[in-house]
């Protein structure tokens, strides 16, 4: 039996999410990964932005920090730089990571500090009542696109790859085992990792798009999920609005801190002090 209870901060329960929300499945996967890796709760900092996903940090019995909308990665950067040996895990929503926090997202990928980012992509601004987000599919009705979303959406994986993240994967809440696997792998990876988990917001996205209950919404996600191995043989047209899942990038590049130590501190003579 895995001892994942030590990672739960029972005093703050019950959790605030709507019944059927996918965040619970992601929460379970993350504490399970902690337990499998036997990380000491004291050696972990969980940092989150603002939104439904941002509320996650409160419920981990580790060092935790709930920050501002879009900025979680910047706080995490300071924590990691000041404590290179500790584990820093960040939760962001799709709006948090890719709209207001988009600049921090790409620069964190570029910088390659050993931080673990989990983007919970529910394709909507959940917390504020269902406004359009940078990942809302074109055509979907939201409270700020009452006639349907006309904008194209961001592909988190492509963005992370191009910006230089060294581990990039995508999974959905329908695939808890595969999700656990990529989360665990990202935790073991040395460098900046981005794991996108596609999740269901039947309340604030589904409700306005004929997917008002958890099951139809999860089914919709499932119908649009394509494993990477299969996607390789599909055309761009066929892959439009599909969630291609799997591991996209697993590469090595020296991380910011090792370069700082080797090139900067040594040159300045700080290593002799």
């Amino acid at each position, binding site marked *: 039996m895995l001892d994942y209870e030590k990672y739960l*901060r029972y*005093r*703050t329960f019950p959790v605030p999410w709507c019944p059927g929300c996918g965040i619970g499945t992601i929460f379970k996967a993350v504490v399970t990964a902690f337990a499998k890796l036997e990380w000491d*709760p*004291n*050696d972990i*900092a969980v*940092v989150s932005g*603002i939104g439904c996903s941002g509320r996650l*940090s*409160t419920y*981990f*019995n*580790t*060092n*935790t*920090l*709930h*920050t*501002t909308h879009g*900025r979680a*990665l*910047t*706080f*995490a*950067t*300071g*924590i*990691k*730089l*000041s*404590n290179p040996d*500790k584990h820093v895990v960040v939760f962001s929503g799709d709006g948090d990571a890719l709209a207001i926090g988009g*600049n*921090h997202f790409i*620069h964190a990928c570029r910088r390659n500090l050993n931080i673990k980012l989990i983007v919970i992509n529910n394709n909507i601004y959940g917390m504020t009542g269902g406004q359009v987000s940078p990942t809302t599919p074109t055509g979907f009705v939201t409270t700020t696109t009452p006639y349907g979303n006309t904008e194209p959406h961001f592909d988190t994986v492509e963005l992370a790859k191009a910006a230089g993240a060294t581990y990039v994967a995508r999974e959905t809440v329908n695939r808890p085992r595969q999700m656990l696997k990529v989360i665990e792998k990202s935790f073991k990876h040395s460098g900046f990792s981005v794991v996108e988990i596609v999740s269901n917001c039947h309340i604030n996205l589904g409700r306005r798009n004929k997917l008002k209950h958890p099951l139809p919404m999860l089914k919709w996600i499932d119908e649009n999920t394509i494993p990477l191995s299969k996607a390789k043989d599909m055309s761009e047209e066929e892959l439009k609005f599909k969630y291609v899942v799997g591991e996209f990038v697993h590469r090595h590049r020296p991380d910011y801190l090792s370069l*700082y130590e080797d090139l*900067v*501190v040594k*040159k*300045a*003579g*700080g*290593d002799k*002090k």
Partner: protein
Amino acid sequence: MNNVKIRSGNELVVEGAIAAGCNFFAGYPITPSSEIAEGMSRELPKVHGIFIQMEDELASIGAVIGASLGGKKVMTATSGPGFSLKQENLGVALIAEVPLVIVNVMRGGPSTGLPTRGAQGDVMQARWGTHGDHPVIALAPAFPKEVFLTTIDAFNLAEKFMTPVILLLDELVGHSHEPVELPGPDEYEIVNRKYPEKLETLEIYKREMGKPPLRPDFFMGYPIHIESLEHNDYGYPTTNPEIVEVQQRRRLEKIERHKDEIIRYKTHYTDDAELVIFAFGSMARSALEAIETLRKEGGPKIGLFQPITIWPFPEEQLKKAVGEKDVLVVELNWGQLVYEVERVLKTNKIHSLLKMTGMPIRPDEIIEKIKEIKNA
């Protein structure tokens, strides 16, 4: 006098920070503050500290808050446009009670304004820039040695009261190069944050009224939670009105009840003065030169009240120094601290000399104004 060096104000901030034990800096370049980031990038690696240039000012203050929670003594530096960008996360440091120093080398505003010209227009932004009610400590040194010592002081106050401290320079103070005798370590005190003797409670905000939190840093063996939402004694989110009131009041009172400890000011020639000038930063220096010229020429005897702590405002100290005398407020803006002076000195006659053209108010302009007041 063997330790005399030529230094700009910005360089003295760097030296003061290093002397204070600062070991983490995150910033984003902006005139007229960039020399601070440049200096820190050069000096921090020498003492095994961390320097990072972030992608913007929001990121810079986010990173220093994270590093402070991680146990570092931290600083960030900027000017007007960047100071505006930092306001939201400044609020995090205030509500979560995280020590840090944020330098604003003031330039002409609003907006991109006058990047290379000095101004004192961010005084009220320093007080009320981030939303909601909050306490603020802001310090504004004028003379070279004062810049060095006030920088150390800023760290001391931040660590002691578990709060961000704003160090307000103006461009003229930041960029003037002057000879300065750097004080040695026996001439200043270094204060570090206190930790609980035993890690036995998670109620890190459970403190007497007016006291800062007493808590471990991250990774000290205790799973603390730090929140940007209003929180209870554990730091966990709450909307309970009674708890909200206690936390809000405690944060305000921790500064209010220690005003005497936080307020620094200087008086020059006030005892025999018939009129007292109120001025800070570069304008205090202009005023002092005007005062000394008049005294040399046998003109009217004028004094100077120079606040170094701008916030909390030195109410009692000003009242005591000025008595019933007339006051002339000299500031490089269209009137900000003059309203505070008027609020505090209800019965004195208060004049003001204000300017915001990108040029300093020169000593001869101050002398002119004094003559005008005398002849009126």
